[in-house]
């Protein structure tokens, strides 16, 4: 008779693998029963194993993704050329370029200057501080992606909270939620943004994001700020009181030094200008859509590495998150297999059959699916798998719905986005403190629901003004239908 301790140990070690296998097996059986062929069943099952590994075996997710790719190739569902085609090297290289550039900007003092500018502000109050971290987090995410943004804003929060001896948890949650909402504002805000922009058919430009997504983000951000100010009003009041007491003693919030920030600011402005004008440059130079967008961070990173050649190896080895990028590549390839085996086409057909072209039904449906999906699963997994479905539904508004749903949905749970996980990791490392899942969920649900409603209303109102897929194709000088399956055909058309 096994002891209670023994049973616990067994459940702890074998429980999660058994759950993963059972769920994957069940889904495999169901998909087979639904009439999917062998290759479709294998691709769905392995995709699900990888999704569950991100939930249940966070530390092993990359290892499981490697094995999953091997299994797909072994089962002849994925070939090596298809893997190379599907792993989205363009997105990966864009992210490498951004990470290197951000690493250099950090060393040059840009982020030090930004944080010092906040610390040095006269007449700071709790309310102002919260407004600053929400908007700073959001706008920095728009420029340098959500993870980079939250690392810097969290440092600012820790500095202020340590100095004032108040708990940082509420302010960290506020900043993370602002950052997540803000990450929907531009193509640079979130890896999801560049993935959607680059894989939409036809691809979306930086200006498209500013025109259709940014205004909804601003509305969502304002609502988020209002909710969080009310939710954490007691902590904000305490921060105001401590700030006042400190001001009366003539003490600041941290040491201030003269930072030579102008060079780094010029580099950032230059990069944003280049990225912002990518569409114009591509048309002028007769380049394929988004060529400049993807290449600009790489070229800037290259130039910076030539300038600071002694540190160039450090930028590549330490500032680039290779672990995350490799996981993304594997994930994109596995999700691409779903498209290659026409699983996504079948899902899109089911949507088409059930809802036709009725966007008033499809918008809330995709919004809810993407928000709830990304609340529990890495949002990039969800987008990688769902993007082909949205493309096949051929409605521009659904692309923005998917973006807003995944970014806003990341606020619902504490594992909803990479920014949440990074911020909580920093908190745990610094204070040995953690937050309970339910505590986050309570405020996350409210923020998720309100911003979700704003996204729904925003997309529904703007949808009639959005260009149709055909109009977008004409705009980029093509008259072919958007890519359907197998994936890549549509993209190839633009690239020729």
């Amino acid at each position, binding site marked *: 008779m096994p002891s209670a301790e023994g049973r616990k140990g067994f459940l702890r070690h074998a429980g999660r693998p058994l759950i993963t296998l059972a769920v994957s097996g069940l889904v495999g059986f169901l998909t087979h029963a639904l009439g999917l062929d062998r290759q479709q069943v294998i691709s769905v099952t392995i995709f699900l194993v990888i999704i569950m590994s991100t939930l249940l075996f966070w530390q092993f997710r990359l290892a499981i993704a490697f094995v999953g790719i091997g299994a797909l190739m072994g089962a002849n569902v994925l070939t090596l050329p298809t893997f190379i085609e599907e792993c989205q090297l363009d997105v990966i290289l864009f992210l490498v370029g951004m990470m290197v550039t951000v690493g250099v900007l950090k060393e040059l003092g840009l982020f030090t200057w930004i944080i010092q500018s906040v610390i040095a502000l006269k007449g700071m109050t709790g309310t102002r501080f919260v407004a600053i971290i929400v908007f700073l987090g959001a706008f920095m995410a728009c420029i340098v992606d959500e993870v980079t943004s939250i690392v810097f804003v969290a440092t600012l929060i820790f500095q202020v909270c340590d100095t004032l001896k108040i708990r940082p948890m509420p302010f960290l949650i506020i900043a993370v939620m602002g950052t997540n909402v803000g990450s929907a504002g531009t193509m640079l805000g979130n890896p999801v943004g560049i993935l959607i922009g680059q894989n939409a058919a036809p691809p979306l430009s930086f200006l498209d994001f500013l025109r259709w997504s940014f205004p909804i983000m601003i509305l969502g951000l304002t609502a988020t700020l209002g909710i969080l100010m009310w939710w954490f009003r007691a902590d904000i009041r305490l921060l105001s009181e401590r700030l006042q007491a400190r001001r009366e003693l003539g003490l600041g919030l941290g040491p*201030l030094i003269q930072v030579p920030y102008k060079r780094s600011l010029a580099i950032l402005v230059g990069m944003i200008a280049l990225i912002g004008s990518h569409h114009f440059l591509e048309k002028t130079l007769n380049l394929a859509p988004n060529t400049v967008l993807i290449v600009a961070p790489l070229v800037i990173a290259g130039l910076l590495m030539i300038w600071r050649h002694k540190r160039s190896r450090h930028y590549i080895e330490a500032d680039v998150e290779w672990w995350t990028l490799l996981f993304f590549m594997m994930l994109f390839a596995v999700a691409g297999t779903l498209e290659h085996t026409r699983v996504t086409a079948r899902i899109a057909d089911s949507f088409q059959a059930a809802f036709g072209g009725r966007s008033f039904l499809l918008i809330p449906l995709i919004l809810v699916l993407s928000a709830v999906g990304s609340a529990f699963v890495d949002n990039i997994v969800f987008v990688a798998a769902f993007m082909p479905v949205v493309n096949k539904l051929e409605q521009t508004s659904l692309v923005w719905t998917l973006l807003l749903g995944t970014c806003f949905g990341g606020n619902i749970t504490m594992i909803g986005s990479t920014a949440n996980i990074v911020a909580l990791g920093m908190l745990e490392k610094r*204070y040995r403190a953690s937050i309970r899942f339910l505590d986050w969920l309570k405020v996350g649900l409210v923020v998720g629901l309100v911003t979700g409603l704003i996204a729904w209303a925003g997309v529904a109102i703007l949808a009639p003004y959005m260009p149709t897929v055909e109009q977008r194709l004409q705009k980029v000088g093509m008259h072919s239908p958007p890519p359907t399956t197998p994936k890549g055909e549509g993209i190839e058309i633009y690239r020729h």
Partner: protein
Amino acid sequence: MTVEKNHIQFSSLFSPSEVICQTQEKDRDKVLLDLLKRLAYQRGIGNVDEAYQAVLARENDMPTIVAPGMAMPHARLDAIKDLVVGVATSREGIVYDPRQPDNRVKLMVLTLAPKAAPGAYLQAISSLARICQDPATPDIVASLPTPEQVWSFFDKGGMVLPDHLRAADVMDPVQVQLQEHDTLERAIDLFVRHRLNELPVVDKDGDLIGVVSTYELLRVCLPDYILWMDDLTPILNFEPFAEILRKESKTWLTEIMTTDYATVEADEPAVQVAKEITRQRTNRAYVVRGKKLLGVASLETFLSKILRE
């Protein structure tokens, strides 16, 4: 937590035949050698010369005068399996430490512990804690004329070896501490004057309320957002430190005091000290009774007492 479980009497570790009573010898080393020879004859401790060299090496390094007039020399030996104790008394006293010629030792308790028994010596010394605190003990024991009476003194004293070492057994007394109303200026003064890198902060009742460290002070001057920068030109002249200098006299300790430190209750097993030091990734644990600060168990002291004494 109760300490005494095994109820081993200190007096059971030796017999009257292992007591040198009222020796006329004035030389510390000769008394130690006589005592070791007697123990070798009575109990078997292996090579006497090796034991002698081991005891001398330790005493020459740091004389073990545990209380005025009382010394507890000791060594760890491969040849023995249990604690072995020998006692010597002197009416006139022995010059034990040339640097303290006036502090003559009248009672010597020699403890030999097995090599692989961490803390055995400390257990023995811990059992004698009560008599060590009484300054009359060496004179009283030295006045007893027979070995039987000396042994009887220890037997009747009810001294019992603790079941295990307590945190209080491996701590040092707090030499320097800060009060809650002190300023940063005083903390920096004490850091510099005593060459310490951490100071406990207590309130008016002596309760431990926090810790101030030089590392925290450095982190206040150089927070993360300054350390990100590769170019140190803006701080080459220690600009962030100048800010601290300007404000140190009106900055309360609470500004840099941390409440994240390792504490251990005095009566908890000493191994708890090692656990807390490891868990908190620090190099010292504060020994408290309730909230009252009793002492500091540093990693150096802990290792020295457990692995070397």
